[in-house]
């Protein structure tokens, strides 16, 4: 039983403007990770590659290794900090590439309509039919392990994810009377698209990109976990977990669970942030 009561709506709008705690925490965590990754050489307590068989598989909190060590005695905290570099940079590349492609394709499809739209949409359907990780694996099968090829593959794979949303929002937004009112006022299509349509599509795009970032991070970490991603001596969180496999079966799961937890928290944070951006757009759209 919902009734639209102006006073109520105004209240909830006010509440929405205050940033929820979860969003603040998510932002703080992401900033922390970025700083840790950027300043890893300065901040990391140990060298990420210093092995010590005497100190292997230490649990968290043991002496000078705050988060313990892995099966070759390398410091887990330092490795997580160094791992943040590739783990965060690679999905960022995916998001930027797919964002640019997605905007171009989505806007083109929405504004062109007709057969161009049909062809583009069908193309996006086809790419969509490849699960992103499968496409990445297909590419790795051809090029061998490494990150460049999967990044490109994932960028292509996420283009429909962005492009479809851009297209539908652009069509939806394009059907709103204000687009027509600009045409009546004598403005050209390109001008209206770039100056009014794109800024109104942007928030949705950012929200969607945040989600894509999380998915790409998981996909790339999965690749590394499967031994198909980064090659030693490079390391990301996925490869750390991969190397902890035997330790887990021995009942010493920490060196695998901790980087796993970091992946999890990163993705949750990015999703929370994306959702918040998406939600505040929905709030702005609401209105009478």
């Amino acid at each position, binding site marked *: 039983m919902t009734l639209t009561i102006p006073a109520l709506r105004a209240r909830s709008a006010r509440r929405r403007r205050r940033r929820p705690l979860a969003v603040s925490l998510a932002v703080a965590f992401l900033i922390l990770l970025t700083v840790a990754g950027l300043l890893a050489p300065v901040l990391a307590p140990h060298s990420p590659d210093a092995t010590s068989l005497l100190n292997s598989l230490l649990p968290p909190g043991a002496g000078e290794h705050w988060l313990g060590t892995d099966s070759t005695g390398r410091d887990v905290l330092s490795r997580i900090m160094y791992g943040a570099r590739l783990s965060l940079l690679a999905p960022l590349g995916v998001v930027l590439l797919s964002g640019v492609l997605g905007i171009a394709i989505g806007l083109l499809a929405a504004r062109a309509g007709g057969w161009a739209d049909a062809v583009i949409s069908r193309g996006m359907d086809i790419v969509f*039919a*490849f699960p992103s990780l*499968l496409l990445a694996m*297909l590419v790795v099968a051809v*090029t061998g392990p490494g990150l460049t090829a999967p990044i490109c593959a994932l960028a292509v794979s996420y283009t429909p994810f962005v492009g479809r949303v851009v297209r539908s929002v652009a069509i939806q937004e394009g059907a709103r009377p204000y687009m027509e009112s600009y045409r009546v006022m004598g403005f050209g299509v390109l001008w209206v698209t770039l100056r009014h349509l794109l800024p109104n599509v942007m928030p949705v795009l950012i929200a969607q990109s945040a989600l894509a970032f999380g998915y790409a991070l998981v996909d790339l970490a*999965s690749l590394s976990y499967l031994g198909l991603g980064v090659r030693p001596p490079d390391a990301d969180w996925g490869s750390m977990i991969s190397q902890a496999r035997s330790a887990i079966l021995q009942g010493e799961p920490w060196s695998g*669970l901790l980087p796993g937890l970091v992946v999890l928290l990163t993705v949750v944070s990015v999703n*929370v942030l994306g959702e918040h951006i998406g939600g505040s757009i929905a709030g702005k759209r609401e209105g009478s």
Partner: protein
Amino acid sequence: MKPTQRRRTFAGWIGRRALGGVLTVLIASILIYGALRLVPGDPVLAVTGGRRLTPEQIEALRHRYGLDRGFAQGYLAWIGDALRLDLGTSLNYQTGVTSLIADRLGVSGLLILYSALLAIVSGSAVALVSAVKGGPVNRVAGIAAAVTTATPTFVSAIGLLALFSVGLGWFPATGAGTGLADRLWHLTLPAVAMALVAFGVLARVGNAAFTEELRREHVEVARSRGVGGAAVIGRHVVRNALAPMLTIVGLLFASLFVGTAVVETAFGLDGVGSLLVGSVSRRDFPVVQGIALIAVLLFVVINTLVDLAMPFIDPRVTVGGPSR
């Protein structure tokens, strides 16, 4: 519109949808085949993957992949064989790809169905209860869904492994077991690990769909007519949210397919997923192509079926309208 006329357009619509699906698979297959040709340099080097082969063997490979012919002829030969269920020969195992996959389909298929069932039942139940109850229940469910959606399958796999197999010893850590009961017991942890993401997505999307339907005026109207609570939920809320839910379920199969690769590797299961991972790292290209083709085919078939079911679920879906 007369009924006969409607029936005719409906048949035409089914035809167009099915044709769209076939077209998607066809173009996807060209991409799968063409991936080999996209490599800079001699594609046969990608196929051999650094193995030492005699020039005769290389020539034989070249011939098998149609690399000695033009792209179109090569593709047609490959897809022609594939249509006859011949997906070529594995470089690594030296046996037919089709039989390699078929041998492992049982484990992977069961795993996918098992986890799909888990995800659909638990996801929709949580979605419905949280949407109807609202308040703290909704918030807790929302957090649970957010966390499970964000948990990479390999993280939940090692987490479950560490806790329930190694730690508590309730479930086996490796192997697929023999006999149905034993197999289900072996597959429970892998299925749960795979189902978590799908559960989260369904719980979220379902919650949004149910909440939206609960707000509809016709739900309020039904209540204003004194229709009982359970009947309102069943006939109006669940019934109307079926369409978006089904669409999501169809799309989730993509994540379940690739989930097998991760989970089978983590739990040491000998299925199609681990075959794929092994073949990618050994650059056993025929196997990779075969599995990719089957995955895409299954995904498109499932989602085309979902599409075709839509007009029966939501009569407003315009049968004559253009495809999405």
